[in-house]
């Protein structure tokens, strides 16, 4: 426990100091925080519950649009804002901006949660690949439909309110970094405490054998919906932050980007190791470094690399980094291994 405490303290201090240590990478670090949030919460229903969803992008995009719409709509007419496009017809004062952001983030987190609860009963009854394809369809459909709605900018996109002038040039980056970092800390604490309860065991029971879990008297549907709602809550929150960070929302390229973000979530969690607390965090960090490196040095070939990366990870590392470590050092993970048994296995090989 003591060792863990030091580890957490070190990470926290590093996180707080990071924007001042690496001022040039503030935006990248904020995106990393958002990615970790997405991967960690995908893992709740993807890894722990065994319901592999491509559709969490739905909540992410919903949160993004909602946060920006609320932030604008609280003070100015929304339709005129989107009509004027990128031109700054209306300017938020700092108070208006932060008030709007706060309310927007709350809405961005709550509404996707409610949506997940509402559609959960019908969607989560699907099993296995039907669920995966259905959620994939859901995400793409949301993108296509939001691309046809005029009030949120339709095909031409939606410019989120620009950051107000509060004196310092660095303020924008720092604000978004700390916003995303504290969201990450909040997510981590929440997920960690969820994982230490009976709830996690129920989710694992659903993953391992749903029918058996139901036969044991667990109301599987209730817990599946709750699990998905938790995912949706954090996805919406992350989407709201990301919308402000990027500054521009497009229906299929930024918000409901099933081809990029929707797959990234899954990939990061799988790369790190599904069904572990630290796996998605490690996976997201490695993935982000790799991705940014590739995006910078091999511009244009990034999606080719992404496609190859997906295939390689899925074929050769389906258990992820944590799974590999677990196989190598089972003792560290609290598993008791019989030495004789291990030797016998090695001899068999």
């Amino acid at each position, binding site marked *: 426990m003591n060792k863990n405490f030091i580890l957490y303290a070190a990470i926290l201090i590093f996180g707080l100091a990071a924007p001042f240590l690496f001022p040039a990478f503030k935006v990248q670090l904020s995106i990393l925080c958002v990615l970790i949030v997405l991967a960690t919460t995908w893992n709740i229903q993807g890894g722990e519950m065994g319901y*592999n969803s491509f559709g969490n992008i739905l909540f992410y995009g919903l949160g993004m649009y909602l946060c920006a719409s609320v932030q604008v709509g609280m003070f100015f007419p929304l339709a005129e804002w989107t009509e004027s496009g990128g031109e700054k017809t209306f300017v938020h004062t700092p108070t208006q901006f932060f008030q709007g952001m706060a309310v927007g983030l709350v809405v961005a987190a709550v509404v996707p949660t409610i949506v997940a609860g509402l559609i959960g009963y*019908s*969607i989560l*009854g*699907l099993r*296995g*690949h*039907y669920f*995966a*394809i*259905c959620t*994939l*369809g*859901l995400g*793409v*459909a949301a*993108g*296509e*439909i939001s*691309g*046809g709605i005029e009030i949120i900018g339709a*095909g031409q996109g939606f410019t989120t309110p620009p950051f107000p002038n509060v004196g310092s040039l660095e303020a924008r980056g720092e604000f978004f970094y700390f916003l995303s970092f504290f969201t990450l800390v909040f997510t981590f604490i929440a997920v960690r405490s969820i994982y230490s309860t009976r709830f996690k065991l129920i989710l694992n029971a659903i993953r391992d054998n749903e029918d058996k879990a139901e036969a044991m008297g667990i109301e599987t549907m209730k817990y599946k919906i709750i699990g998905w709602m938790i995912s949706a809550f954090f996805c919406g929150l992350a989407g709201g932050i990301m919308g402000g960070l990027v500054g521009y929302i497009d229906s299929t390229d930024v918000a409901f980007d099933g*081809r990029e973000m929707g*797959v990234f979530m*899954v*990939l990061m969690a*799988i790369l790190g190791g599904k069904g572990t607390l630290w796996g998605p965090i490690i996976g997201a960090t490695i993935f982000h470094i790799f991705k940014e490196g590739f995006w910078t040095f091999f511009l*244009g*070939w990034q*999606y*080719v690399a*992404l*496609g*190859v*990366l*997906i*295939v390689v990870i*899925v*074929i050769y590392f*389906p258990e992820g980094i944590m799974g590999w470590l677990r196989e190598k050092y089972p003792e560290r993970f609290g598993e008791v291994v019989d030495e004789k048994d291990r030797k016998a296995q090695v001899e068999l090989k």
Partner: protein
Amino acid sequence: MDFLVFQYPMITLQACLDGILLGVLFALIAYGMALQWGVMNIINIAQGDLVILGGYIAYFMYLYGIHPAWGVIVAPVIMYFVGIAIYKLVINKVVDRDLFISILATFGISILFMQLMNFAFGADVVLANSGYGTTMLFDNNVVLPNSKIFSAFISIVFAICLVIYMKKSKLGRAIRATAQNARAAKILGVDTEKVYAATFGINAALCGVAGALISITFTIHPYMGLPYTIRSFMIVIVAGLGNLPGVAMSGMGLGVFEEFADYILGTEFRIGSVFLLLVLILVYRRFKLSRKREYLK
């Protein structure tokens, strides 16, 4: 809107005919998907991208002065080997694994193909002009491009050839045996590895035919693959595996639905309505199945 059928009978007829001709093409793609799903238990997200690749083959023939209709012969031959290559490189490692793994792996292939096509052929929307002209029906109120009729005819020919091949040939029998029980087939001397490769190759060849026809009839674009995958998936789950008349019927039904969605909601919601229909069908299916389960209780 409700009275569209009565107010504009010609538009309705046009949409129906367009939809049916389009649906035959969808059914051809879906047949390939049903084949590999049934035999290898794999859902191939890259299906649509194989279609688009086939389309580009025909388009390039058109660019070099060969009539694109010959693409119907050339594209499947090339695509057969592309399919076998994909199988040897990726699919044979995920055949026995979890279905989700195969979905994700083929998703990766799909992204890869999409981007490679984008590099190789550019991001423009293209079509291969066949120069077939149009057929006018009912006092010129219904316009049918001959290329659509041609493509529907060719799809039916290919589907019939494939059905006969699956029934009569040795490989066809081996494929059907593997679909029924892979282990038993293996014991009885069927080289399942070869059967899987051939199945994937045949599926890719079918996609090639469909793609060549689509490039003649409609337009192709590197990023247009995913809707074709979703359409074929939808047709297969509605029809069931190995139900060929069902595949044909639901393909046509989907085509008609799309044309009507296009007329009523507008073109910008066309793809969205397809994906939404998929979600609705899956949800309907889930409630139908759960009622069955409750009945068993």
